[in-house]
Each structure stands twice: as C-alpha cells, then as structure tokens.
C-alpha cells in the first residue's frame, strides 16, 4: 500500500487521558488495572476503567447520543488537540472529503442494559428517554463523531469484536488509496458494560488477578475500556520522524466462534499479509505489539504464529497488562502505543507478566527499554476468527 501519515493521534485508557499519561505509564511499567467495582457488577476480576467518563457532558446538539460510550468518544476526541487537528484537515479538504471509520464491539449497549431495569411494569416497554439509534447501535460512535465535526461524507463503524479498530485502518487506507477521501478519522471506542464483563466471565476467560500476558501462569483477561483515534492522510508531505501506516493485513480463522485457531494459522496469514502490503520482510520488523490477551489459548496460538514467522529475533510485548483488554478499542489503542514507541524510541514492557511461558519461543520483553525502531507490527484478533495486523513506521 501507499504509506499514509498518522498526522495526529491520541489514546485514553485506564493509564490516563492522552499521550503524556500513556507514555509515562509505559516508561514506568505502571498498570492501570484495579479490582472490579464497576456499576453493580459482582465479579472477582480486575478491570481497566477510565476515570471520570461519566462526568463528560455532551453539548445540547449531541444530547441524543448521551451514554457512557459516547461520553468516552467525545473525551477521546478532545484530548491531545486531536479535534483541532481534525478541524484543520476539514478546512483543508472540505466536509465531504474527511471519512469516519471507527471500531467498537459493544458501542453503547450499557445504555440498553440499564434501560431494561426500567421497563414499564405493566407493558414491558422501555423508558421514553432510551434512544436506540444514538446509543445502542454499533454505528453510534461513528455517527456522533461525524456530527461532532459536521462532516457530510463517508462514515462506517466496523464491528469485528476485538479486531475492530485495527481493521478501520485498512478500510480507511483503501478509500484514501482510491482518492474517495483525502483524510480519515480512524479509531476505536469501547466501554465497560455488563454484557462483556459477565460474558467473558461465562466463558471462564476473565482472570481473578491482573492479567499476565505470556506468563506461564496466565489465566485470563482483564477487561478494559478506551478511546483511541488517529487522523490518516496521504504522506507526501510527511516530515521526517512522523509516524506512517505502512501495511495492513486481514484474515479469518474459519475455525471457532470464541477460540483461536490452535496453530495460529489465521494470525499468521494476517501478519504475512501486512508484511506484503508494506513491502517488508520479517527481518525488517523491530517490535511486535502482541494481541496478548493473557488467555492460555490466545497467547499460545499467537506465540506459535509469531515464532513461525519471526523466530525469536524480534522483541515482542503485550501492553494489555497495562491497559487491560480494551476489546473493540484495542487495535487503535495499540496502534497509538506503537506510534509512541517509534517516535520516542522506547520499546514497552509487560506489566503483570512475571515468569515467561517457556513453551512460547519468542523474544518477549518483560521490561521496557530504549530502542531505535524503524518498523513496528501490531496484532489484533477477535471472536469469530477475525484477524488484523498493522505495520507502522517512521518517515525518513
């Protein structure tokens, strides 16, 4: 693919709001995970909750969108000057030429879960104030973003569970390649809700401790929430040192709804496709931000795929011990973490992980360290066997 510039980017997770907080946490190997005290949830698990999401107030014109997921969407947009950079792009290209491509797994389903507690006793009806389209629907985060900026062009939400906001980079890159748009707001927003907390618990995939990716004793995920965005533009004018999207790769496991292919076959296809798309080989990759959810099956399968392609020659880490698994936002959160790693020259470690799984022969980094990197690859894999790998680099 033709390289694209990430001309602005931002991430908000349990590590804090914005790049500075994220950077500081990664440098000090700090985790943002805490024992679950979300809403009325009674589960013995740890979560990555973003502070003060519900204090976010939407303007009157966007009041119909009010729900936790869209509060976090607005919070994310208004961090690190991201919204200003988008407005500048809109004034350069016009309202119809900036597309919106956002990923989520559950959007504002929490709003519906809460509304079901307030059904009319006689009729069973949901409360008057519940608005399906602008809260529950998977498109709501893309629609509020389009309305927030007064855009009039292309918009779509991608919802492939935990690969959602990696795949948005691929979809936007295609439209930029074709010239149907001149810039794209890409990213992902997912927020805590009962469906995912009780759902992952029902699959026995949540850990009662902070998650420990690639640890020999790993026993499940810690669910997080997050909002991460990037502004993608053609890179003709990218200045030296700016971060580029170089390749995207997508594949399907065609294996199982909630378990990865045991040999990591789909994961390997996605990484190979990303390398092809970037015109790079395995030896060009300097860092891999693993999907690394910390379930026994995911890390084993991904580890096999990484070992098969890269051997133990490429430093790897999962940052989910820091952020938790932000599900549909994970792809974008981890793309931003790779962008920070590349521009800061700091390779992140893995909070929580103590004893590496000796059965996974990759170069897993427990501690962060300074390192000059040219190319970083990030993996995102989701339920339904949906896989996506992205390759980012630095402009020469």
């Amino acid at each position, binding site marked *: 693919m033709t390289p694209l510039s990430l001309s602005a980017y931002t991430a908000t997770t349990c590590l804090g709001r914005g790049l500075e907080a994220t950077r500081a946490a990664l440098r000090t190997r700090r985790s943002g995970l805490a024992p679950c005290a979300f809403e009325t949830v*009674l589960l013995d698990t740890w979560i990555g909750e973003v502070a003060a999401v519900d204090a976010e107030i939407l303007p009157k014109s966007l009041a119909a969108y009010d729900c936790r997921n869209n509060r976090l969407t607005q919070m994310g947009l208004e961090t690190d000057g991201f919204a200003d950079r988008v407005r500048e792009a809109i004034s350069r290209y016009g309202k*119809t030429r900036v597309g919106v491509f956002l990923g989520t*797994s559950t959007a504002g*389903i929490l709003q*519906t*879960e809460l509304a*079901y*507690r307030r*059904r009319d006793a006689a009729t*069973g*009806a*949901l409360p008057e104030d*519940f608005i*399906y*389209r602008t809260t529950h*629907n*998977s*498109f709501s985060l*893309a629609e509020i973003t*389009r309305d927030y900026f007064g855009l*009039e*062009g*292309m*918009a*779509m*939400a*991608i*919802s*492939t*569970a935990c690969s959602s906001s990696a*795949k948005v980079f*691929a*979809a936007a890159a*295609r*439209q930029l390649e*074709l*010239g*149907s748009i001149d810039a794209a707001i890409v990213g992902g927003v997912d927020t805590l809700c*009962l*469906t995912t907390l*009780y*759902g992952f618990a*029902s*699959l026995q995939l949540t850990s009662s401790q902070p998650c420990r990716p690639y640890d020999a004793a790993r026993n499940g995920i810690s669910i997080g929430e997050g909002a991460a965005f990037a502004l993608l533009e053609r890179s003709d004018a990218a200045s030296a040192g700016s971060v580029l999207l170089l390749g995207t790769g*997508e*594949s*399907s*496991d*065609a294996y*199982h*709804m*909630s378990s990865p292919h045991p040999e990591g*076959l*789909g994961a390997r296809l996605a990484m190979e*496709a990303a390398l092809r798309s970037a015109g790079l080989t395995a030896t060009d990759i300097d860092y891999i931000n693993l999907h690394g959810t910390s379930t026994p099956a995911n890390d084993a399968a991904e580890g096999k795929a990484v070992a098969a392609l890269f051997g133990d020659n490429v430093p790897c880490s999962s940052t989910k011990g820091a952020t938790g698994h932000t599900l549909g936002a994970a792809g974008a959160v981890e793309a931003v973490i790779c962008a920070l790693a590349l521009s800061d020259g700091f390779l992140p470690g893995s909070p929580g992980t103590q004893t590496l799984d000796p059965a996974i022969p990759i170069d897993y980094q427990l501690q962060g360290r300074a390192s000059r990197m040219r190319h970083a690859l990030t993996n995102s894999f*989701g*339920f*339904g*066997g*949906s896989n996506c790998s992205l390759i980012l680099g630095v402009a020469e």
Partner: protein
Amino acid sequence: MNTPLTAWIDGIGFLAPGLQDWAAAAAVLRGESGFTAAASVLPAPAILPPAERRRASRVVKLTLAVGLEAAAHAGAEVAQLATVFSASGADGHNCHALCEQLAGDDRQISPTRFHNSVHNAAAGYWGIATGAMAPCQVLCAFDASFGAGLLDALAQVVVDQQPTLLIAYDSEYPEPLFAKRPVPDVAGVGLVLSPRRSERSLAAITVTPDTAAAATLTDPAQEDLRTTIPAMRALPMLKMLANGEWGSVVVDYLPPMQLRIDLIPA
C-alpha cells in the same frame, strides 16, 4: 486522483419477506408476478452439520442463504471469496435475551449467548461453514449499512483486486426493543463483485457520491420494504438488474451523501 469504485457483478442472492430468493424477487421486480407480503422463510443451511443446522440463529440462516445463492449464481468458490457483511444490527433475539437476564438477579449468562452477541457472529459462522480464510469485514452504518457495505466491498475489489462477496442484511428485534427499532423481519442481499469480467458477469457497477434523492419504487409494498429494512435500500438497483435496464440510479446512504450507481450490461 479519484479511482472509480467499480466492479463486475457476477452473482446475486436475495431473501426478503414474501421473496424467497433472487429468482422470485426478480420476477416480482419485473412485474411478472405479484408481491404478496408474507413472513420471510429461512431455508435450513445444508452447508452446516445437522446439529449446527438446528441451532443456527435467524441471522446465520439468512446470511448463509443469500451469500451461498450469490456465490452459486457467480460460479464462485466460496472459500476463496473475501467477504463484507454489513448490517444495521446484530442478532436481535439474542440481544434481548441477554439484556433481560442482565437486568435480573441471575446474571450468569450462557457463554454461547455471549459469543453470539457480537456484531460479527454471522460472519464468524460463515467462515466456519465455508472454510474461507480470506479477509472478512463486518460493518454497521445504521440505515446506511447497505451503502457502507457497497463502498468497502468495491474498495476491496479495486485496491486488492480480490473478488468480494457483499452480504447486506438485517433482522428484527423482539419487543420491547422492536418499539425502538421497528425492523419488521429478516432480509438480505448478496452480491459477488469481481475485478475482472467473466462469462458469469451480469453487469458492471460504478458507485459515485451524489446528493440527489434516492429512487423510490412505485409499488407501495415494495417501497415499504425498501424503507423499513436498511439492506433493502438496494432495491432500486436490483430492479434495474432484474429488468436489464441500464443507466444510473441513486440509493440512500448517509444524508446528505447518497450513492449514484451506474450499471452497464456485461
């Protein structure tokens, strides 16, 4: 520097209330047979093993029906096709059951219900059923979902030179969500879109942004279908294909952006 969003349509699949497949829909759209409103009939998916076939949800049956019909029409090998699923919502019945249980005292939901709750559940079952390891996209754009699916599917065809199966589909919610989102029934359309013309090609399709109003259908029952089920925003285009009419038609996307579709015979 705009590259046209263009492809060859090699196959069509269709299912809607009262219209069990593309042949039935085409006959109605040509005016050869009358359209009688009736509940959608979902065929048992023969591609699934018997146990899975019985358990398959309505959206899984729907997407397998229209997707496999389109692929067979195109003579395409399903395992080789990239796919774009686009739906305004996921499995409404499953969603209702989860919300109802999570509002009560026993929140120990079923793991199967949980993994079936993802927006890409039907896409996941498609992969398992067909063995397709190609890229699989799953989109939502509320009422604009057909247009969003078409835009991304055509982009995959042009940029990646990859034959791509678009499956745009929707299903209903039961009450009380139905009152908030009144999609009346399941319906879907499948299109096999190819970068190269073949002997199977039916027409060339090119999509361009526009701001004109969408074409409507003169038959009130057909127009009702178009407006109440998002995937059926494709009907004005399908009517032209059914009648072998060539030229331009505008379909609804995301106001103020509409999609002008140009059809040229193969």
